[in-house]
């Protein structure tokens, strides 16, 4: 799939917020459309945009909507600081500047014909959601889909209705866990790696795509490797302080890579030597 970016990647395009949906107590999904009614944006699952909140600053946010929906851009944002709080506080009709999409997405085409194991932690489900849409809308092209999702507590779970709907698709297994549960929680409790013993995996014919806090991804990658997946078949989405988004400024340098341009998706084979380096 090709993606369309502005001829000058540093120039923001005006978008209008059309809808803000509260997913959890601190996480919101914003749907935006081009202000001018111009053509929409093509993107690959896993790519991100730079969102400019006027008067506040610019934020790198992964696209979380369906890749087939070109006229809208959807972002799921956790309000954790001044800029993200300002972004999720936008009302319908407010303007936001959008640059991008940027970066290398999930290897969706390369995974065709294979089983796909998706492992998400916390807000990490958002950058994986376009990939799930892509697989489910092109179901014949993929083998079994296994989605393992972990969150901190039941009230932190994203996209609850969609998780239930995804589980109803054929040859699709969705397992959800929380790190801590209250007495009313009837589901699984334990870190996301504890779900592997319930997953129906065929490691030799599987590609895994993982997104979540970096420590969680390290544990998950080790678990996947332990189950027999090759390092080249495990992909992780990395996060660093991205500013220019095109590899000029160096803010997001990670060893020899720029996360914004060379990533954010990398194979575990590429990342493994870097993941255990102190303070990198």
């Amino acid at each position: 799939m090709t993606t369309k970016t502005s001829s000058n990647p540093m120039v923001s395009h005006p978008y209008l917020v059309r809808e803000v949906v509260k997913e959890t107590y601190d996480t919101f999904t914003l749907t935006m459309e081009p202000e001018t009614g111009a053509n929409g944006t093509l993107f690959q699952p896993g790519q991100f945009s730079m969102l400019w909140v006027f008067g506040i600053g610019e934020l790198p946010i992964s696209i979380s909507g369906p890749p087939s929906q070109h006229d809208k851009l959807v972002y799921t944002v956790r309000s954790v600081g001044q800029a993200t709080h300002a972004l999720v506080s936008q009302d319908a009709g407010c303007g936001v500047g959008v640059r991008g999409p940027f970066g290398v997405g999930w290897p969706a085409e390369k995974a065709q014909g294979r089983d796909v194991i998706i492992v998400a932690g916390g807000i990490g489900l958002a950058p994986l959601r376009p990939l799930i849409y892509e697989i489910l809308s092109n179901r014949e092209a993929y083998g079994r889909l296994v989605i393992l999702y972990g969150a901190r507590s039941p009230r932190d779970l994203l996209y609850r209705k969609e998780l239930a709907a995804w589980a109803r698709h054929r040859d699709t297994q969705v397992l959800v866990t929380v790190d801590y549960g209250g007495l009313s929680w009837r589901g699984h409790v334990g870190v996301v790696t504890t779900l592997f013993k319930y997953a129906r995996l065929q490691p030799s014919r599987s590609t895994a795509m993982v997104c979540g806090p970096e420590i969680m991804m390290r544990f998950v990658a080790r678990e996947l490797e332990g189950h027999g997946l090759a390092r080249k078949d495990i992909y992780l989405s990395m996060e660093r302080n991205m500013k220019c988004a095109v590899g000029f400024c160096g803010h997001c340098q990670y060893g020899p890579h720029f996360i914004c341009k060379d990533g954010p998706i990398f194979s575990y084979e590429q990342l493994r030597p870097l993941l255990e380096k102190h303070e990198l």
Partner: protein
Amino acid sequence: METLERIIAEHPFFADLDPEFVALMVGCASNVVFKAGTYILKEGDPANTFYLIRAGKVAVEVVAPQHKPIIVSTLEVGELLGWSWLMPPFQWKFHARAVADVRAIALDGKCLRTKCEENHDLGYEVLKRFAQIIEERLEATRLQLLDVYAVHR
């Protein structure tokens, strides 16, 4: 008809266990059922049993003062509940509650401890299998303690 011997031999925890040892286990085993909502074990009580879960789900709970209990893990079919019977002071450290109706094989820890003392080959097999479970749960607990999804400002 499923015999205790067959159930124990086919349970993942005892996979590939020597049939002679399975026979020794059967002498300490019984079928048990817990209705949803009942406590299987309670913190501070003597720990003289462990359970191989055959059906249902068990919540392991911690009671914190002035708070409702917190579920720290759940155990399901094919998993094992309880290792405090293996080490002094033989007391449960957590509560465990049946979330759904549970069918399990209960193994008498006192009986098994005696057999392990008499037959160290059996004792080594049992300890190796428990060490594997303890290692897996310790790693999961460490990751849980890191609280990786929290906002660290």
